[in-house]
C-alpha cells in the first residue's frame, strides 16, 4: 500500500457553539488531484485553516509525511511542504508581482540578514537564483509580462494566478487551492484547469482544491470529498459523487422527493 502524504483523523474545530469541522477524516496519496466541495458554510476553508495551522483544532490530528503537525506555527507548516492560496485574495498589495513571488522564496533562503546587508557572495548568488526562478514561475502561470506591476493593480484573475505562483515559490509538496476559479471567466477557467493539471503532472505536486465551479471540479479532480455542516457526507470519484443521494440533498435541500410524495397524498 502507498503511504499517504496527508492524513487527517477525526479533525474537529468549534467556534463557540458552532461546529465548523466535525470529526473530519481525509487521506491524500502523493500525486493525487483531489477536490473538497460542499455548500457554503460547510467548513471547507476552516479545514484548510486547520491544515495550515492558522486555526488550532479542538480535536483530531493532521499528519503530513508521517509527522504530526500539531502546535506548529503556520510558517513551520509551510516549511514542511504545505502551501496554500486564499479564498479572499491576500496578496502583498504594495509589492510588485515579482516581489510577491520572491517573498515566497524567503523561507528557503540560506543566508543570515548580516550577509544580506553586506551582500556576501553566497547571498547575492541565492538572490539571483531566486529572481530567475520567480520569473520562471510567473511565466508558468502566465504573468510573465506583468512582473513589475503592483499586485494591487492586477486584474482579479491575474491576482488569483499570482497567489498560485507565490505559493509555488515556497517549494511545496502539497498545494491547497481555495476557490482558484472564483471570479474567472470560462476562458480563464479553462487556462487554470490546464495549469493545475500541469502542476500535478510536471511538478509532481499533490493538490487539494476547494471550488464551487462544478464543471471545473468534475473535469480535473480524480477524487472528491463532500462536506456538509462540518461532516463528510460523501467521497469518491466525481461521477459517483454526482449521483450520491446525500450530496444532492445537501446542495438542493432535503426532501424534494418527500415533498412530492406529500403533495401526492394531499
Amino acid at each position, binding site marked *: 500500500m502507498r503511504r499517504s502524504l496527508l492524513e487527517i483523523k477525526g479533525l474537529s474545530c468549534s467556534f463557540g457553539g458552532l461546529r465548523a469541522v466535525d470529526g473530519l477524516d481525509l487521506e491524500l496519496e502523493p500525486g493525487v488531484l483531489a477536490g473538497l466541495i460542499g455548500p457554503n458554510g460547510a467548513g471547507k476553508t476552516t479545514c484548510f485553516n486547520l491544515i*495550515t495551522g*492558522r486555526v488550532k483544532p479542538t480535536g483530531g490530528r493532521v499528519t503530513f509525511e508521517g509527522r504530526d503537525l500539531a502546535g506548529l*506555527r*503556520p*510558517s*513551520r507548516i*509551510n*516549511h514542511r511542504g504545505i*502551501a*496554500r492560496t*486564499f479564498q479572499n485574495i*491576500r*496578496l*502583498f*498589495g*504594495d*509589492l510588485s508581482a515579482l*516581489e510577491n513571488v*520572491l*517573498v*515566497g*522564496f*524567503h*523561507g*528557503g*533562503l540560506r*543566508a543570515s*540578514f548580516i550577509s*544580506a*546587508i*553586506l*551582500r556576501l557572495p553566497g*547571498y*547575492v548568488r*541565492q*538572490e*539571483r537564483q*531566486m*529572481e530567475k526562478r520567480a520569473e520562471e514561475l510567473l511565466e508558468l502561470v502566465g504573468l510573465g509580462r506583468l512582473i513589475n506591476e503592483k499586485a494591487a493593480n492586477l486584474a482579479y484573475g491575474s491576482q488569483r494566478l499570482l497567489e498560485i505562483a*507565490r*505559493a509555488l*515559490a*515556497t517549494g511545496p509538496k502539497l498545494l491547497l487551492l481555495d476557490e482558484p476559479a472564483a471570479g474567472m471567466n470560462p476562458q480563464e477557467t479553462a487556462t487554470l484547469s490546464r495549469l493545475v493539471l500541469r502542476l500535478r503532472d510536471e511538478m509532481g505536486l499533490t493538490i487539494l482544491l476547494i471550488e464551487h465551479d462544478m464543471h471545473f471540479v468534475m473535469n480535473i479532480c480524480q477524487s472528491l470529498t463532500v462536506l456538509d455542516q462540518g461532516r463528510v457526507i460523501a467521497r469518491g470519484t466525481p461521477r459517483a459523487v454526482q449521483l450520491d443521494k446525500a450530496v444532492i440533498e445537501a446542495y438542493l435541500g432535503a426532501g424534494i422527493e418527500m415533498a412530492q410524495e406529500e403533495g401526492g397524498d394531499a
Partner: protein
Amino acid sequence: MRLLGGIFDLGPLPRRSATRGRDNMLTVGFCLAVAWVLYWLDGHGDPYLVHMLTMAALFATLAVSYNLINGVTGQLSLEPNAFVACGAYVTALLTLSPQEKMASFILEPLVWPLSEFCIPLLPALLIAGSLTALMAFLMGFPVFRVRGDYLAIVTLGFGEVIRVVAENAQSVTNGPLGLKGIPRDTNIWWAWGLLGVTLFVIVRLVNSSYGRALKAVREDETAAEAMGINAFWHKMLAFCTSAFFEGVAGGLLAHLLTAISPKQFDFLFTFTLLIIIVIGGLGSTTGALLGAFLVTFGSEHLRFVEEGFTVPLIGLDIPAIPGMRMVIFSLLLVMIMIFMRRGLLGRHEFSWRWLAAVLGRRTPAGGGK
C-alpha cells in the same frame, strides 16, 4: 572605482538596470559633496549652524531607524524614547570619569563597578547600542503577542516604565537630577558618520530578501506566515536593528547635550519622531530623512513665534506665547494629513533614476525620446 561604486550600491539587487553604474557613481559623488560641505562648514561656518546640522543628523538617524519598525514592518510602536534614554544613560555612565560621577551622585552613590569605569566613546557607544538591542529583544517577547493599536499601547507603556525607572533607580541613574558634565565629544563627524552607517545598514536591509519579508508582514501578516515567513522573528529583527541605532544615537545625543535627565525622554520625544516619519511618509527611508531635516530646522526657525513679534504690513502684535511652535507643527501636520495623506513621499524613495526621469521630462533635449 567600481569597488567604491559597489560599496555605495544601496538599491535592490539588479535585474537589468542600465543606469546602475551611473547611479552608484552619483551616490558616491553626492556623499563626497556632502562630506566636503560639512568639512567646510566645520572650519568656516557658523558654530550654531554646525550644531544644528549635528542635531539634525542625530534626529535623522533616529527617524530612519524608527521608520524601519513603524513604516517598513508596519508595527506601530511608541517606545523609541526608552531606547534613546537607555543608549544615553549607558554611554554617559561608561564615559564619565570616576571623579565626575562622584561629584554628581550626591544623594546616593553610584553602584560599585560603574563608579570605577571610564572607557572611550566608541566602545561605549557600541556597548550602549548592543544593550539597547538586548532590551528590545527582551521587550519583543511580550509586546509582539499583540498587534495594531494594542501594540502601540503596550509599547507606550514600556516607554513610560523606562522613564520611571530612570527617575527612581537613583544609585544607577542619579534619579531626577540626571547626569551632568558629560564631555561634549559629539561633533558633526560623529553624527553624520552614524547617519551614514545607519543609512547603509537599513537601506540595504530593506532592499534585501529580509526587507521584502518585513514588507510582507506589513502588508498581510497572515499571508506572510502562510508563505513561510516567521512574522515574530522578522518583527524582532526590525525591532532590535532599530533599537541598536536608536541606542547609539542616544549616546551621541548625551555627548552633544552634555547633560541628561529622565524628563528629556518622555513621550514627547517619541511624538516628535512620529511626526517626522509621518510627515516624510511612513515606510520611506528618504522620507524619514527629509522629515528629520524639515522638523529640526523648522522648529529652530519658528523660534521667533514664541518670542513675540509684529506681523508686517498689518501691524498686528503677537505676544510671546511659549509652546506656540507645537501649535504650528500640529497645524502643519493636520494640513499634510488633509492634502498628502501618506506624507511627503508616501512609500516612495528618492532615486537617481526618478530624478533623471523628472529632469528628462523638463528638458526634452537631454531626455531623448
